[in-house]
């Protein structure tokens, strides 16, 4: 496609892909300067759902802050809770029983599949195919039912505690999870035939929005945005935490750098999560889910601590600055979509608006996570 010609200032108009828009997955505003269908300049305006979680981190005690984490990214909430409990356990030196670690890993992977299914449905709907959304949501319902039976919530979980979990899983959950895995594998094959092989879909995504490795590095992108550009970075493998070194799984990396590569990465990740769940269920040890000795009041020693985990959207980091008290001195939440979204302004110059919106879909945005 040809790039647009040099323009006079009054030949462009400003189109507000406003806070209320079916395609922007939340309240996000992008001020686009357009020349006909081409974007000359884009400026992302965020902050419409800013709730100041970091200030709440400075006024709530450690246990009181547990529920804030699932309100950030509601689709993949368990991954965020995992990061939080890990950093506080690291700081306060709390031991976690092995059974709890395994259950945590299984739950996080189930949540990751649910989040990717929702992304898949919403992404294809953005491109105009309305039916895969219904199929993906139906598969997701199985996961949500399983998780609800154990944790009590469908979406905003508050399941992990410092030291372990508050509720153990029972045989019903294990049976449901074991029967879910082959069903999900069949569904993935169906999505492959219905969507991935579709020629219109491929034409929409091939070659759209190439992101170079250098650009990903400058912005700190992670998850499918980096792995679709050939960067082999997954916190579970690069910086292993919790019980992930015990599992045998691959990290899908594609080198084409375009939107189709990002799509393929996420579809392949779902299969790898199924493998982790299978191995987790096989290796699940017996034992307690909370440590025998737990401090009554969580007071990590003074200093700063950092923990990164791999959530559905990328590398989520928590930086905890503690002064020895029972309330954190500073709690910084590094959200992956914040860095991924930042790319958009620079990368979408010269694109057509249809392609820019397909690109936005492939970045897998959840706006409350950007705004915290």
């Amino acid at each position, binding site marked *: *496609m040809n790039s647009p010609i040099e323009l006079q200032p009054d030949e462009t*108009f400003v*189109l507000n892909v406003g806070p209320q*828009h*079916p*395609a922007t997955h939340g309240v996000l505003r992008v001020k686009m300067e357009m020349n*006909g*269908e081409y974007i000359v300049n884009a400026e992302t305006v965020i902050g419409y759902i800013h709730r100041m979680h970091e200030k709440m981190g400075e006024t709530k005690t450690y246990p009181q802050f547990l529920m804030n984490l699932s309100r950030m990214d509601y689709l993949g909430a368990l991954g965020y809770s995992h990061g939080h409990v890990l950093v506080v356990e690291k700081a306060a030196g709390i031991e976690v029983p092995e059974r709890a670690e395994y259950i945590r890993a299984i739950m996080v992977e189930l949540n990751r599949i649910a989040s990717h299914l929702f992304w898949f449905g919403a992404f*294809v*709907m*953005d*491109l*105009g*195919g*309305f*039916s895969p959304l*219904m*199929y993906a949501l*139906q598969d997701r319902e199985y996961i949500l039912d399983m998780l609800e039976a154990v944790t009590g919530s469908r979406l905003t979980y508050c399941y992990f505690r410092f030291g372990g979990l508050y509720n153990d899983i029972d045989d019903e959950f294990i049976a449901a999870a074991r029967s879910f895995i082959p069903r999900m594998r069949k569904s993935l094959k169906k999505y492959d035939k219905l969507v991935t092989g*579709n020629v*219109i*879909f491929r*034409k*929409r995504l091939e070659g759209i929005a190439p992101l170079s490795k250098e650009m990903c590095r400058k912005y700190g992108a992670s998850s499918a945005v980096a792995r679709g550009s050939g960067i082999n970075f997954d916190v579970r493998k690069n910086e292993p935490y919790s019980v992930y070194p015990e599992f045998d799984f691959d990290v899908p990396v594609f080198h084409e750098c375009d939107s189709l590569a990002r799509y393929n990465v996420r579809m392949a990740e779902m299969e790898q999560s199924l493998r982790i769940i299978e191995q987790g269920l096989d290796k699940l040890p017996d034992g307690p889910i909370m440590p025998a000795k737990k401090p009554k009041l969580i007071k990590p020693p003074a200093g700063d601590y950092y923990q990164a985990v791999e959530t559905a959207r990328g590398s989520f980091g928590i930086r905890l600055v503690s002064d020895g008290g029972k309330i954190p001195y500073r709690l910084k939440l590094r959200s992956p979509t914040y860095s991924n979204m930042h790319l958009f302004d620079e990368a979408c110059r010269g694109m*057509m*608006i*249809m*392609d820019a*919106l397909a690109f936005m879909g492939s970045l897998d945005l959840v706006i409350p996570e950007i705004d915290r």
Partner: protein
Amino acid sequence: MSLTLLNVIVAVVIAIGFAALNAAYLVWAERRGAARIQRRPGPNINGPFGLLQPPLDGIKLMAKQLTIPGGADKVLFIAAPVLAMFPAIMSFVTIPFSESIVAKNMNVGVLMIFAFASMGGMSLVFAGWSSRNKYAMMSSVRAVSQAVAYEIPMLITTITVVMIAGSMDLMEIVHQQAGSILHWNIFPLLGNSHNILMPMSFLIFFTCTLAETNRAPFDLGEAESELVAGFHTEYGSMGFGLFFMGEYANIVIGSCMTTVLFLGGWNAPLPFLSFIPGVFWFLLKLYLLIATFIWIRWTFPRTTIYGLLNLSWKILIPLSLFNLLFTAGLIKVF
């Protein structure tokens, strides 16, 4: 039919009534079809199988307030939905449903229908421009370029059929396809032209009908997820209702034309089945085509604007021109 004024008026009213009823109940059919494809029930609360849904939706739409955005061009704003609905319904007047069921047969039937179809494109421009909304304007620009691009292959394939039939009269075209399925213009092995490339023309015509009526995968004009609701963003209440019904009426017209030109109109596929009245065959073919429209919409994602325009200008027009010349050659030789 005797040409008394009363007869003509009654016939026209019945044709318009058929069109309006179809447009209303196609909404129901689409919603049920979409629901089946998406594994959910669809409207089934209002009346048996949800059959009362369209009239109730109509009542709801009429009861809503018709808002006109400040600064909008009032005349064009109100004229646009009327202009969307009117040509589609008027085209029904000359479509032959069977040997004797036609409101007013004209010997330039094909020309009249395509003239009315082109008028429908004006409503897109009026709606987008008069709404004073950038989204609406952008989408009407896209829709107009799409309409222009796809009219051309549609007309070229129609000219092919008219050449074979030797007349623009719709009745005449259907008469020439009488016989059996192999006489129809889609597989004319025994018919007038022994042109084996006619199925390709049929596909081209079908694709162009999809594009002319702004149906997925060519529905950039209404691209819901990008431009909110496209050229009818600012319309509520009955304005929206009229656009909707106009779109379905266009679908019915497009399917009628496809049936008449390629699928043999009211002719039965095999000669011994012609004891079943022609109307039944016509309606069967019509509704099969409409079911295909609905099926395609809910299966495929949307194309890009450049993909769409490339398809038309670089692929469909050369192919249809080639078929035209090929048919002309065959007619000359045989």
